[in-house]
């Protein structure tokens, strides 16, 4: 039996990117919500809820980039120059917010203020940049002989900006839901208010982005049964479990918020992310550079993919195992007192 290595690797990378979006999503969301905190000590608690895990979360981004290079080098070589500006912007913003975790603790009054702002601004800009990368990616990339041959600002459009704003709302939602889960008292109550606002924004923006995607990309539209002036219902019905999953996530999150549940809003928000992600995948599979390069065309040599698969089969379960263990160690509510110890 021979394994379909490119397909397996497409699945591995898709999971890595999904995990990145969910995991770094909530700690970027904490940064997005930073300006709205009630007091400096609330900000300290907010940061403390993610401080032990953010680095591990961001490593999924390195696996996404490094994995794309290693598994689908032709997609990596095509996409990175095409999305040059938003990727560099994301990296710079991630630097500012990443060092802020330590620098904020070391700074005196002025330094601490500066790194508080840097953490918030860095988180917001990194999220916007990721949204622009995603939007630019969905719009498609002009290739010639496998290399980027478009304009440096191709990624910038009303559509990509809409996606960027939508992603800010999405990360704010899972950030707020995370805080509901992991904090108590005043901050917990505040986080619930944030979650309501973010949930409303995400619902509107996710719907707007979904429809805009059908319009921007006729091929995606056709897959979803969009004919230009109406839906082919039979076609739409086949993919309907995906939007229904999103609606279920919305329901779980809203009901959880209403009933003052602690964990359910986070779970619901994650389900909404999953549905958006699956929706994209359904629109693009098997393309890894939308409608220009399939994952088979972009795949690395089989012997490279095979070697890496051996590594993944052994290492990924271990990574997931000890990552869960670290989350387990730091479980429970993070209070305003020394609740962490």
């Amino acid at each position, binding site marked *: 039996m021979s394994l379909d290595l490119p397909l397996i690797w497409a699945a591995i990378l898709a999971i890595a990117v999904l995990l990145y979006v969910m995991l770094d999503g909530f700690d970027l969301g904490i940064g997005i919500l930073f300006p709205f905190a009630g007091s400096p000590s609330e900000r300290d608690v907010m940061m403390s809820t993610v401080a032990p895990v953010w680095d591990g979360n961001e490593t999924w981004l390195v696996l996404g980039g490094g994995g794309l290079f290693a598994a689908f*080098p032709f997609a990596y070589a095509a996409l990175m120059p095409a999305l040059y500006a938003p990727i560099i912007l994301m990296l710079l913003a991630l630097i500012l917010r990443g060092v802020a975790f330590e620098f904020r603790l070391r700074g005196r009054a002025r330094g601490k203020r500066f790194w508080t702002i840097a953490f918030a601004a860095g988180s917001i800009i990194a999220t916007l940049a990721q949204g622009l990368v995603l939007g630019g990616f969905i719009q498609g990339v002009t290739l010639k002989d496998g290399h980027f041959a478009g304009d440096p600002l191709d990624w910038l459009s009303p559509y990509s900006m809409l996606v960027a704003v939508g992603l800010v709302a999405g990360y704010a939602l899972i950030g707020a839901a995370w805080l509901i889960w992991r904090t108590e008292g005043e901050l917990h109550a505040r986080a619930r208010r944030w979650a309501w606002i973010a949930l409303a924004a995400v619902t509107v923006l996710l719907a707007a982005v979904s429809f805009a995607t059908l319009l921007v990309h006729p091929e995606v539209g056709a897959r979803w049964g969009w004919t230009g002036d109406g839906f082919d219902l039979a076609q739409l019905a086949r993919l309907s479990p995906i939007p229904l999953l999103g609606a279920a996530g919305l329901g779980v999150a809203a009901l959880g918020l209403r009933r003052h549940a602690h964990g359910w809003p986070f779970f619901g928000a994650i389900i909404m992310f999953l549905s958006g992600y699956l929706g994209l995948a359904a629109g693009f599979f098997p393309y890894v550079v939308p409608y220009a390069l399939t994952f088979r065309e972009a795949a690395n040599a089989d012997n*490279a993919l095979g070697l890496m698969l051996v590594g993944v089969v052994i290492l990924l379960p271990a990574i997931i195992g000890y990552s869960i263990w670290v989350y387990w160690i730091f479980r429970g509510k993070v209070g305003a007192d020394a609740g962490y*110890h």
Partner: protein
Amino acid sequence: MHLDALLLSRLQFAFTIAFHIIFPSFTIGLASFLAVLEGLWLATKNEAFKILYLFWIKIFAISFGMGVVTGVVMSYEIGTNWSVFSAAAAPVIGPLLAFEVLTAFFLEASFLGVMLFGWKKVGPRLHFTATALVAFGTAVSAFWIISANSWMQHPAGYVRLASGALRAVDWLAVIFSPTFPVRLLHMVLAAYLTTALVVGAASAWRLLKDPDEGESGLALKMAIGMFAIVAPLQLLAGDMSGKLALRYQPAKLAAIEAFWETRSGQAFHIVAWPDRDTASNRWEVSIPRLGSLITAGDANAEIKGLKAFAPQDRPPVFLVFWAFRVMVGLGVAMIGLGLWGGFRVWRGGLAGDRWFLRATVAMGPAGFVAVVAGWVVAEVGRQPWVIYGLLRTTDAVSPVTRGEVSVSLLAFMTIYAVIFGVGVLYILRLMGEGPLAPVAALGTVRPPGYALGAAPGDPPTGSGTRS
């Protein structure tokens, strides 16, 4: 000079990677130092080790964070600026970089959380395990990245298909390419040396303020023990690395020594002014025949000069020649400091020898300078190739514009200047306060989640307290 996207991309990559390597050079060694400190504390219950651990972990946290965020940049910059290289090299070195992420980055990142914040969440043995795993992860990371770089220095275990694409045929030959073991040794020793010099400098600084600070005296002795042994070993590793360059990258070696003519009994140029335009040294101060002796182990050996290579295949000479001399000069100074320190430890009176302490403080940054200089030799010396003999740097660049790379380079320089300035300030501030500084004196309100915000004397098990 014509600033096109290629040159700007080279400047940007050189800048971001040189900046990045500063942090791993320090944290590879410091993670091991922390593991040793914690292990010794667990074994001896000597509180001084714990005090030192809790002091150096703060500096580690800052440095490691800067290393992580500047490292994430590298995994994307290969694609944004060197897409042709990415597509060409991935079939062979792609798995090496993927293994670095899978075996090292996740391990480091996950257990760093336990190491920094888990002091009261896990037992002392588990905490020590976390520290040891972080240290192990940093070394594994070095393994893979030096392996990938060594393959680029001297490709092995591959074939070139009719289409021009590269394919690995022997993974062990790819991973363990001929220059890899020695270069890995050279880099790991460099990291230990760099860390020992920093620990030594910070401790010496404290002893200049307070000669009776026992913890700093202990740390200084540990640092001296490290660099007194490692500095001479590094000279040997460097010599082995040079011999490999002679064999596998003769153009690089010729640039290192500013040899232009191919001849037996090459002179050693102590200093020189190499000029690529005239293909000669404008002036030089030389010792006859020593060049052949050092590089080949035989004063009469014939060594290739740069003129044996076509002008378009010669690396930049001036930079390589001088970077090498900076590295070796600092290495010799480190050996001298090790001898001096060893003598002082043996004869006593370490804390009272103010000149030695001052010299140790002055040598604090020497490791970083030597590491960056060494990488300049390795990388500039490989030019004009990005994959030696297979892909020229000029052919490897992405289809990006001058405008894009100008803006990104300026942005990197600005942001890096800010984080470097602030990071160094915070580290120096901590070093100035020393390991016994009361937490309140750090001047910040600790967030409750910060484990180290607890009084350093709070033991995780309840046994022993700091007096």
